Every structure is written in structure tokens, then in C-alpha cells.
């Protein structure tokens, strides 16, 4: 398999599987697992190629930018593809158990539509991570948004429907902000190719406004404080596997585009003020999200607010990685943390789904003794919490450690303090859940049985989130391939 084939298969196989899953209802799970296999093989191949030969670019149609569209795989894109594939595979295993263990009449309907929508989501994510063209990214964003919104609505309950519609409105308006920005950029620079933009972009009114529009749209989609309001209801009311996908991957798609825009296409516009502004919003997100998480009565809402908080860490990457000194340390730290959070959050939402199905509710104060009935799930939640808080040897620790080192090296004490406070708050809300879960009760209630696969997939992801910590050196090496020039990374 050449790297061109690998790139093509990463997009074509989930797309074709999505279409087939719609045409042949009932084959969804097989198609999803088949996609997981093909995508996995393609990623292995592409990783080999990238580590051996640097950034892999494929010119669609043979035209090349600016007339054509380029697809590009560098270290960052590969990391995102890997995280997506890992979580996508886990969800492929988990979902059937989830939809069949619930006790409602609509479950077959939900399962039937879950598979094509899920595969469309996967298509959109793979296409987004490989795209090097800001208009093409718009199309992937729409694909991603439609799939995400519909998946939330699949829960069918009133709260889920309302949350889905609000999410759709935010998502569509945000896409239009982004698209208007793309139009202005094209008018100014006559190209929509990320790589060519860096050479052509000169700060000026048009580009400032364009970038502000695109950033505003992407911040809303990424649910960065103060545009986070739509996230908790949507993520908390969606079916558990969907919540996991949304928190772990979907919001990060928009974050990924922000990184590409500011660090690669428009580094000329990345002033210290802009970087500090992003950092400030991230700080507010960490504090606000964590406090809200502490106050939530329901487990899924707690996890959703935790997502609001943890997204804040990702935005610390802007002030820390924009510096030439120690920039790459922060860059790799932030992105390792992204992977850690994705796996941990998936594990947590899957656990919450297990609890909902087994106990029939997810009220935190009534979780006493849940370890007795769902020992594996409780253990998975604990492990995921370990990584979320950032305790060694988890990958959450590795990511935060690198961020801290970078902040220390640059003397940016505010961020040092913030990372530590955020970790303490995370420890507090994780403990809040665990203290209930591990409380012994005299007469444990007998829960509804759930398929073992639901527990084991949650555990696998929690283990992955911890275990990735041991691979952080390797991840950093991967990320070096094609890292932005801004931080002194190796230019392709």
C-alpha cells in the first residue's frame, strides 16, 4: 500500500461504509468493524511513510494547490487519526451492546441509524485531519456538524432534542462565520491552501477580520468558554457512545483547524496579544468548567462540564507554544494531553452509559455501592480519572508535565499556577464520583445485566489513556514531523 492509497482509503472506506450501512440496515456493525480494520492498516502504513520520509502530500486530481486540493499527512494529522481510529474502534464494539441492552422500543431504530451516522462522523473526522485546504475544511466541518447533531437527537428524549437543535443552530451559524472568513482570505490571497497562505498572508484589515470570523466560528464549535453553553446539554443527553465521540473527538476537530490556521497559515498574525487572549479564555474555561462540574447532580453532566474545563488546557497551547523557546515542548505536551483526554473522556462516558443501563439512573449521590455491581466500570472510571487529573504514569501526566515545563522555562507563572489549580479541581470532582462509587452499602441493589463488552471497552480506553504515557516520547517524535516553523520545529 502506498501512502497515496493509505490517504485515499482513510476517506473512501468510512464514506463507502456509511453509504452501505444506510443501504443495508442491519449490516452496520460489520461495516464499522471492517472500516476500523482498513483504517487501522492505512494508518500503520502512513505512519511508516511519515516517519521515514517526512510529510506526505497527495494532490487530488493531480493539479496541486492552488487550483486543486492537497491532502496532507504530518505528525499532528497522524496523531489525530490514530486517536480517532482507537476511539472509533472501541465505539464500534461498544455500540451494539449499548443499543441492545437498553429497555426501550425505539432501540432497534436507534441502532439502525446510529451506524451510518457514526460512519459519516468518522469520514468527516478523517477528511478534516487530512485536509490542507481551508474551503475543503468547511465542507468537512459541515459533514461533522450534521452527523454530530443528528447523533445527539438520536436519544429521542425532549432534553436531547432541544439540545440537538440548539447545537445545530450554533454549528450552522459558526460554519457561516468560518465560510465568510474563507471568502475574504480567498479575495485577499487568491488561494485557500494552508501551505501557500503562509507565504502570501500579510497582516491587514481584510485578513484580521477574516481570521477573527473564522476563529469566532471555530471557538463556538470547539465550545471554548464563553461559547461553551451548548455543550453540556448536548453531550450529557446524547446516547453514551455519542457523548463519548462528541467530547473526545468532535470538539477537537475545530481546535485542530484553529491550530492549523494560527500556527501554519497565518503565523504572521500570531501576536503575543492573540496568544494571551486564547490563554485567558482557556483559563476561564478551566476554572468555570471545573467549578460547574463540582456542582452537577448527574454523572453525565459532570463529565460534560469536565470537557468544558479540559478543553481549556488545549488553548494554553497558544501562549506557550507560540514562543520559539520551549515552544515545541508545549506543543507536544498539549497534543499528548489532547490524546489523553480523548481516551479518558471516552472511557468515562462509556462508564456512565454502563451505569445508566445497569442502575437506570446516573444521579451521583445514589451511586453508592456501584463498584459492587459494576466493578470493571468503576475501575475504568478510576483509571480514566487518574489520567484526567494528571497523575503519573498516565499520559495526562505526561502532557501536563510538558506544558508545565514549558511554562516554567518561559517564566509564565500564571499558567503554571493555573495548570496546578485545574488539576486539583479535577481531582476534586473525580473524587466526588469515586467516593460515592466506593462506598460500601449493606444491601446492594441488583442491577440490570449489561453485556460484558460494554465494560471491557471502557476499561480498554482507560488503560490506553494511562498507557499512552509510556509512549509519549514516540508521540513527540511523530509530532516533530511537519511541526510548525513558528516554534523552531523542523520545516518539511
Amino acid at each position, binding site marked *: 500500500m*502506498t501512502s*497515496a*492509497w493509505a*490517504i*485515499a482509503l482513510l476517506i*473512501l472506506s468510512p*464514506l*463507502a461504509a*456509511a*453509504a*452501505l450501512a*444506510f*443501504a443495508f440496515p442491519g449490516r452496520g456493525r460489520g461495516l464499522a468493524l471492517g472500516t476500523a480494520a482498513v483504517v487501522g492498516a492505512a494508518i500503520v502504513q502512513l505512519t511508516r511513510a511519515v516517519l521515514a520520509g517526512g510529510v506526505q502530500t*497527495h*494532490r*487530488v*486530481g*493531480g*493539479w496541486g494547490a*492552488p*487550483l*486543486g*486540493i492537497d*491532502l496532507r499527512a504530518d505528525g499532528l494529522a497522524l496523531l489525530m487519526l490514530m486517536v480517532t481510529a482507537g476511539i472509533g474502534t472501541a465505539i464500534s464494539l461498544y455500540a451494539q451492546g449499548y443499543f441492545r441492552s437498553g429497555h426501550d422500543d425505539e432501540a432497534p*431504530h436507534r441502532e439502525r*441509524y446510529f451506524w*451510518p*451516522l457514526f460512519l*459519516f462522523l468518522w*469520514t468527516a473526522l478523517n*477528511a478534516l485531519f487530512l485536509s490542507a485546504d481551508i*474551503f*475543503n475544511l468547511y*465542507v*468537512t466541518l*459541515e*459533514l461533522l456538524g*450534521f*452527523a454530530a*447533531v*443528528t447523533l445527539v*437527537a*438520536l436519544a429521542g428524549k425532549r432534553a436531547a432534542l432541544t439540545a440537538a437543535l440548539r447545537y445545530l443552530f450554533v454549528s450552522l451559524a459558526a460554519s457561516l462565520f468560518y465560510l*465568510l472568513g474563507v471568502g*475574504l482570505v480567498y*479575495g*485577499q490571497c*487568491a*488561494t485557500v491552501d494552508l501551505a501557500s497562505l503562509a507565504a502570501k498572508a500579510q497582516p*491587514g*484589515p*481584510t485578513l*484580521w*477580520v*477574516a481570521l*477573527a470570523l473564522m476563529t469566532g466560528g471555530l471557538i463556538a464549535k470547539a465550545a471554548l468558554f464563553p461559547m461553551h453553553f451548548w455543550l453540556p446539554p448536548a453531550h450529557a443527553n446524547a446516547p453514551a457512545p455519542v457523548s463519548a465521540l462528541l467530547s473526545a473527538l468532535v470538539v477537537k476537530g475545530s481546535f485542530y483547524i484553529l491550530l492549523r490556521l494560527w500556527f501554519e497559515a497565518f503565523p504572521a498574525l500570531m501576536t503575543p496579544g492573540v496568544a494571551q487572549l486564547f490563554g485567558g479564555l482557556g483559563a476561564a474555561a478551566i476554572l468555570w468548567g471545573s467549578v460547574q462540574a463540582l456542582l452537577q447532580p448527574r454523572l453525565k453532566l459532570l463529565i460534560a462540564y469536565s470537557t468544558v474545563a479540559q478543553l481549556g488546557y488545549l488553548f494554553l497551547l497558544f501562549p506557550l507554544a507560540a514562543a520559539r523557546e520551549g515552544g515545541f515542548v508545549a506543543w507536544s505536551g498539549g497534543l499528548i494531553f489532547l490524546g489523553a483526554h480523548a481516551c479518558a473522556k471516552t472511557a468515562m462516558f462509556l462508564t456512565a452509559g454502563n451505569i445508566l443501563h445497569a442502575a437506570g439512573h446516573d444521579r451521583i449521590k445514589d451511586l453508592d455501592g456501584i463498584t459492587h455491581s459494576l466493578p470493571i466500570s468503576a475501575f475504568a472510571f478510576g483509571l480514566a480519572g487518574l489520567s484526567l487529573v494528571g497523575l503519573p504514569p498516565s499520559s495526562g501526566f505526561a502532557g501536563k508535565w510538558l506544558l508545565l515545563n514549558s511554562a516554567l522555562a518561559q517564566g509564565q507563572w500564571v499558567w503554571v499556577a493555573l495548570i496546578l489549580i485545574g488539576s486539583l479541581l479535577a481531582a476534586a470532582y473525580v473524587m466526588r464520583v469515586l467516593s460515592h462509587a466506593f462506598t460500601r452499602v449493606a444491601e446492594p441493589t441488583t442491577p440490570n445485566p449489561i453485556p460484558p463488552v460494554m465494560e471491557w471497552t471502557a476499561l480498554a480506553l482507560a488503560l490506553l489513556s494511562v498507557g499512552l504515557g509510556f509512549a509519549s516520547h514516540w508521540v513527540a517524535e511523530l509530532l516533530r514531523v511537519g511541526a510548525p516553523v513558528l516554534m523552531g520545529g523542523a520545516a518539511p
Partner: protein
Amino acid sequence: MMRRLLLGILSLALLAALSWAVLSLPAKPTGLTEASLAKLPESGVTNPVTAVLLNYRGYDTLLEVGVLLLAIVGVWSLRRGEWPANDLRDRPLLQSLLRVVLPLLMLAAGYLLWIGGFAPGGAFQGGALLGGALVLAMLGGRGRRVLNHERLLRAGLVLGALVFAAVCAVTMLLTGGLLQYPPGSGGTWIMAIESAALISIGLTLGLLYLGGRPTDTTPPSPPAHPTKHA
């Protein structure tokens, strides 16, 4: 009221920023006109817009066909379709009009597809006409046989995406490049994609009007008798 005022001020500020941005654009932006025209002979079509849509930036269109399919999957997952309330079944004159108009619309859709290669038109415009024809048919209480054949509908809806994906794979085999057509054969490949896409686009747009999955879409029995006596 306070909220409106605040949002009004915010919007005016946005308007000012946007005006500033568009007025600062270069008076003669470079664009890609020249490049598009220069490569036009190699693209397999002579309408530059079609060349962009299905050749230079054909990959965008692949994803767009995916968006269309996703939209209908989403709508079907959300609700059951409803037959239009004010259907025209008991109007014989309109019925005979439809008998003429529907085939004409389908013919026009095919025509638009065909001329898209060298004049304004193409699969999207043709598909829109086809969708319009489907809407009219539904309003007239026609097309029931097709609409109740769910398997057939699903096949028609995914046709565009699957053919497009297949062309991507075949071009990979032939030239090693995604959507890189072998020299001289661009027109044929584009026509293959567009023909399949036309059917899917038309069906999608028409079925969006139905607003849901077509289970139990047997139209309610004609309301004529009970209402007349009421």
C-alpha cells in the same frame, strides 16, 4: 429590550468590521481565473464551473455528495414523512397537467446534466429540477409506488456517493492519483459521476420535502367524502 439593544450594537459593530474588511480588499483580486482557463483543455469539459466542481476541486464535491446523503439519513432518523396536506388528487385538470409536466421536467433535468459540460448547468441544477418534479408528483398524490419501495429509494440515494467513491478508487488504480482521470478521458468520468449524482441529488431534494422516512406513506384516503357532507 435591553438585550435587543445590546445585540443591535454588537451587530452594527460586526457590520462596520465587515464593511472595513470588504472595502480593504484589493480592487482587482488575482483569483484563479487564469489558472482555471489554462487547464481547461485538460479537464475534459469546457464549462469552467463544471471543471472546478468535478475536476480541479472534485474532492470537495465528493464530500458534498456525502453531505446530501447524510442529510437524508439524518432526516429519516428523526421522523416519519408526511404526505403533503393539500394534495391535488381530486383535481382532474391538474392531474392531466402533471402528466405532461412531470416527464418534461425529467427531460429538462437530463438536458441540464448534459449541457453542464459546456454551458451553465450540471448535476446540481438538473438534480434540483428532478427534486422539484418529485415534489410536484407528491403533491399530486403520484409516485406512491416508488415512495413505498424503501429499498429502491435507499439504493437510489446512495448511488451518487458510491459511484463517486468507486470512481475515486478506479482512478487510483489507473493513475495512482485520487480523482486523477487518465489523460483525455476526463469528460467520460465526469459524466459517469454526474449521472449517478443527478439521481441521488434529485431523490434527496425531493425526499427532503417529505420530511422523514417514507414508512407508512400511504396517502390518507381522499378527504373528499367526509368533508363534503360536513
